[in-house]
């Protein structure tokens, strides 16, 4: 009987040890909202960023959700600040803000993507360029967006923000080319207090995006 007890206690100790293995350090519990976010930037290697002088930016932000087919345009405080922050960064890089009627060299599209209520992989509509800031807005009716193959489609299943920069000067086959893109993912990307940090980080990691360099 004593032997059995001994075996049992040894087994119990083993079980305790095994359950300890689930007590691995959990990275998600060791992370602030700021640390949870990632900022992804892509660019067209063949684009000559010094060849552009002027830009224009959309007057509101597109909100894409998986709960409705059509995109909505919004102008919340967040959106106003986002427009102002991206504009300021573009100006810091030497580009001049002009009205879109003045034939700018670059167009900036802003998109908030809310796909938090599904885990289905979804290719966002903005990638195809249909349904919101269509090329017609920029003065190219009938055309579309041309996304070069270097663009990675990151899987979307939470709130994100995208900043897309298009070359309005050199349409390819009646399509406008995307030359730069920033995508923000993680906790708090829709929080107004984080806009400046996210914009600054995206521009800081894209030194090539400059009129003078």
């Amino acid at each position: 009987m004593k032997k059995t007890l001994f075996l049992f206690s040894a087994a119990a100790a083993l079980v305790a040890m095994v359950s300890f293995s689930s007590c691995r350090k959990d990275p998600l519990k060791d992370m602030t909202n700021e640390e949870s976010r990632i900022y992804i930037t892509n660019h067209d290697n063949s684009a000559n960023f010094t060849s552009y002088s002027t830009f224009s930016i959309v007057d509101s932000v597109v909100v894409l959700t998986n709960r409705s087919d059509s995109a909505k345009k919004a102008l919340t405080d967040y959106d106003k600040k986002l427009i102002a922050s991206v504009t300021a960064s573009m100006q810091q890089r030497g580009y001049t803000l002009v009205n879109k009627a003045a034939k700018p060299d670059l167009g900036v599209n802003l998109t908030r993507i809310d796909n938090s209520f599904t885990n289905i992989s979804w290719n966002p509509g903005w990638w195809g360029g249909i349904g919101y800031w269509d090329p017609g807005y920029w003065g190219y009716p009938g055309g579309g967006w041309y996304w070069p193959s270097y663009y990675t489609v990151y899987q979307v299943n939470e709130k994100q923000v995208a900043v897309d920069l298009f070359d309005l000067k050199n349409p390819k086959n009646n399509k406008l080319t995307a030359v730069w893109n920033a995508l923000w993912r993680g906790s708090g990307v829709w929080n107004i207090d984080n806009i400046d940090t996210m914009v600054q980080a995206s521009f800081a990691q894209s030194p090539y995006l400059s009129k003078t360099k």
Partner: protein
Amino acid sequence: MKKIRNWILIFAGCMAAQTVSAQVRPPLSVDINYSIAQPLGSLKDYSDKTSFRGWSAGLQYMLNNQLSVGIRTGFQDFYQKLPRAVYPDKMGDVSAVQTRTLQVIPIQATVGYAFTKPDKAIIPYASVGIGAANMNYEKYWGEFVEKNNSWQFMVSPEIGINVPFGKASPVMFNANVRYNYAPYSYSDITGFNSVQGNIGLKFHLN
């Protein structure tokens, strides 16, 4: 109960089969150790923090006073969080706080050799474990994880000491140093190398 008695009889039979003149303690033992591991080589480049989250446990059977065979398992969690940095990708650049983790669960057969007779106050030994290890790679980019789980061959030579709590005590203090190698290659890791320090207890079951 009957089954246990049968097992004990089998072990007793094995014992009788040994030409052991003086059996100091029963041949079957269980050991449980707390483990600290230091990553080396490319594993250190991936995650360079010493891991204080680990354990090792095994069963051993003494074939004679010096030679033993057994089985062993364990767990070790490697973890390192890096400050925000920009990582160039094939396609673009990603700014992220990376948390690099690797969880290792080995399952190995062991062969051990004691350098002294079992009646000594300190029993130094050497052993080697050969088997497989489950490698759970999880690299977090912010809150987004890149995962890979696989099994690898793993070999682990070890040297250590057993210190009995009294001359013929079935309980011994165990301390050892173990080197783990696995030809594991994934992403930044081009080979798994670690040095592990273990302390624990070994119980001979009678």
